[in-house]
């Protein structure tokens, strides 16, 4: 058993920012980062387009806040949004001081670009590899803090809780199979999203919702889980993201007739150059929904990998594409065998981001004492029913920092022995994992089969549009998959880098996350942002201007309750784009 003052689960943007915040807040504290991959492999690395923070003289915090609030369909907490927009510029500047290679204006100042749903240009970028540069800057900077201990390629299986308070985790070292109890004064969950619950996603293989399920099983509440973002432009076979920056730089979305169809969906009128908060620069939820309507009208193009529309970048020219969108060109060329300078890019909506997550307050605190969360795994909420592109990277930084500071204060205050119950729980978890391995050795269901069926269930039941029937059916199917999961087979009995065992544990976590998504979506009888119920097509502020909170019951079932949203200065209104 080892002890640290603060344990951070996850080494991506939020986790590394949190760890540095702990080290800076109180250098006497022992902080550890536990990650199932080496930190520089974390999924933050895949973010492309940019990070929003007010920088220009003609932009204001209020405008960034309003864009975020209206983008969220008024489901965000406005106190959280106000804190977020106020602190985002400072966080991005801090990254600049740490060496992030932000793209620049000719005079050397930070350059900003337009982005979807944003009324002003405020998205900082490092070409179209913003997440990559942000992550490596954080990782390399974190290396300079020799006090930050890393557990690279350790997989957390349980958060240890006694009497409503978190005391640490149990984790497996992948290379040896060693299982260890790691206790802590505070635990910060920064494990990112859960896109792999769906079949077609931009998310990396590692995005299996581990942190959400860990917290849920530990007794923390999850929030707004029904809000799953479909990004309008993914490459058809791989699901690889083509960044929104491609549209911000002037790209057009065309249906099979070469028509800029967004004009038919109350998103404005076409103009040759991009107009902010209009057409291709509308919010992601509305653009993905427009695709479904085009599909229904028979105006999409069929391909072996499903229906698509085209993203037209040809008129931007090679020079602009190579300067501002080099990764887009590289990805199209490598994975689609096309050159966007000369050819149309086939795209379709793809699961991209989880607005919901572990319920936290604005200091990253969860409903359990000593347990914090930040980044995509958390739901503060600044994203509400629909996140705006380029708000997630600064969210990782602002709330990673906040959670790190709060956890440091908490851990500094309670530096005492862990209760015996925690040691016992740790031993129980080792036993459970060992028994699991034995039991599943006799299983007969392929892990991949259950996973594939779960993903199809989620797409069919809780896709861009859902209804009561599709959700009820999905709930039934998940129950059946849950029982099949108990018979999932493990053929790998090695203690060394047993990825089959990890796949089994990840699938267990994903089933929890899937069930919570369905439970929340079923109860929310309205349409708001990314949650569109065909049986309840209107927004219903009277009943549902509230966050869904879902908690695990002792019998394993889920229970949904509601928490009013916090409104400070922007009363609920109509979302207006392009007019």
């Amino acid at each position, binding site marked *: 058993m080892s002890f640290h003052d603060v344990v951070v689960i996850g080494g991506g943007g939020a986790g590394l920012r949190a760890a540095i915040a702990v080290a800076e807040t109180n250098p006497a504290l022992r902080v550890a980062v536990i990650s199932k991959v080496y930190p520089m492999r974390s999924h933050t690395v895949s973010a492309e387009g940019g990070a929003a923070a007010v920088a220009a003289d003609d932009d204001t915090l209020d405008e960034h806040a309003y864009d975020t609030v209206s983008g969220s369909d008024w489901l965000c907490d406005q106190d959280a949004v106000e804190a977020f927009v106020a602190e985002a510029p400072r966080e991005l500047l801090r990254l600049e001081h740490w060496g992030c290679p932000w*793209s620049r204006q000719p005079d050397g100042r930070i350059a900003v670009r337009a982005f979807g749903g944003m009324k002003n240009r405020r998205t900082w970028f490092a070409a179209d590899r913003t997440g990559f540069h942000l992550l490596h800057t954080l990782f390399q900077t974190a290396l300079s803090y020799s006090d930050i201990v890393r557990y690279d390629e350790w997989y957390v299986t349980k958060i240890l809780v006694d009497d409503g308070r978190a005391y640490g985790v149990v984790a497996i070292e992948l290379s040896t199979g060693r299982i260890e109890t790691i206790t802590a004064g505070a635990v910060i969950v920064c494990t990112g999203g859960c896109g792999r619950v769906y079949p077609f996603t931009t998310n990396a293989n590692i995005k299996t919702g581990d942190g959400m399920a860990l917290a849920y099983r530990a007794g923390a509440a999850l929030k707004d889980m029904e809000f799953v973002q479909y990004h309008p432009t993914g490459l058809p076979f791989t699901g690889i993201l083509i960044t929104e920056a491609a549209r911000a730089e002037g790209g057009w979305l065309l249906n099979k007739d070469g028509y800029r169809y967004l004009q038919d969906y109350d998103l404005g009128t076409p103009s040759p150059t991009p107009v902010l908060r209009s057409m291709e620069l509308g919010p992601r939820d509305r653009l993905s929904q427009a695709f479904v309507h085009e599909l229904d009208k028979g105006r999409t193009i069929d391909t072996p990998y499903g229906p698509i529309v085209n993203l037209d970048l040809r008129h931007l020219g090679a020079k602009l594409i190579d300067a501002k969108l080099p990764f887009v060109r590289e990805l199209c060329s490598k994975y689609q065998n096309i050159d966007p300078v000369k050819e149309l890019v086939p795209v379709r909506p793809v699961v991209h981001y989880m607005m919901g997550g572990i319920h936290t307050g604005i200091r990253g605190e969860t409903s359990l004492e000593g347990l914090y969360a930040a980044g995509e795994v958390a739901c503060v909420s600044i994203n509400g029913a629909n996140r705006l592109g380029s708000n997630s990277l600064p969210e990782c930084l602002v709330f990673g920092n906040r959670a790190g500071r709060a956890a440091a204060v908490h851990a500094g205050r309670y530096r005492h022995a862990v209760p015996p119950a925690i040691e016992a729980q740790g031993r129980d978890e080792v036993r459970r994992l060992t028994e699991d391995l034995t039991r599943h050795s006799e299983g007969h269901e392929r892990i991949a089969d259950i996973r594939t069926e779960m993903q199809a269930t989620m797409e069919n039941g809780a896709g861009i549009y859902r209804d009561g029937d599709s959700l009820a059916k999905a709930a039934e199917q998940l129950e059946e998959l849950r029982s099949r999961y108990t018979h999932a087979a493990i053929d790998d009995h090695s203690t060394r880098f047993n990825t089959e065992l990890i796949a089994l544990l990840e699938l267990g976590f994903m089933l929890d996350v899937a069930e919570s998504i369905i439970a929340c979506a079923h109860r929310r009888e309205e349409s708001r942002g990314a949650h569109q119920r065909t049986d309840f097509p209107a927004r219903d502020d009277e009943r549902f201007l509230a966050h869904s909170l879902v908690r695990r019951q002792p019998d394993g079932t889920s229970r949904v309750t509601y928490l009013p949203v916090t409104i400070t200065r922007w009363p609920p209104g109509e979302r207006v784009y392009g007019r």
Partner: protein
Amino acid sequence: MADEITLEVARYRPELESEPVMESFQVPLREHWAVLDGLTYVKDQLDGTLSFRWSCRMGICGSCGMTVNGEPQLSCATFLTDYAPGPVRVEPLRNFPVIRDLVIDIDDFMTKLPEVKPWIIRDVHSPVEEGEYLQTPQELDEYQQFSMCINCMLCYSACPVYSLEPDFIGPAAIALAQRYNLDSRDEGAEERRAVLSSPEGIWACTFVGECSAACPKGVDPAGAIQRYKLTAATRSIKDLLMPRSRR
């Protein structure tokens, strides 16, 4: 096009094998399928015990480096159709200890990386409130390509020096040191000099250039090393002529 292609995959399970053995699997040969898609097909449908690392499947996380038909490659960015009719031989990256199957041990790199201090070093850190350090696009260009390193280890696998001289700091770590040395915001070149100029640093490199050829991101570690050799040589001459000057 045939329907299937053979993957010959190196297996090594220390509890079962004393040394790696090759195992063949038939996988679908489809347009757009990367070697990685073939491997995930094996794991999901044929043999769940095959172990390999992968994550982003878009050539940016650096997890899935492997030796494919003798060459270090990102398996997510190397396509089965390019190897048709096969077979495709998939082995772990060379020059590293193997933990299991295609999973290599990169602890050596993770230990060496901090030694070159790949972070901004300044005599005085300005407060964030004072705004950004100005950096023109030209100044950004000076180091930008070296900042593209994804730590995938392909260059170490390709490097003939690293295979003979495991103490060599290696191409990626030196390129990352240069990434900061060439950054107009950085003042840490002096602090990095001892490690870079040591026998395990740039002077170990015989300039074969295999690292730059192997890099999937267009980084030129060989160029970084050559350039630093020049800097270091100039510096040595200055030291000789003006022994008391600090820089």
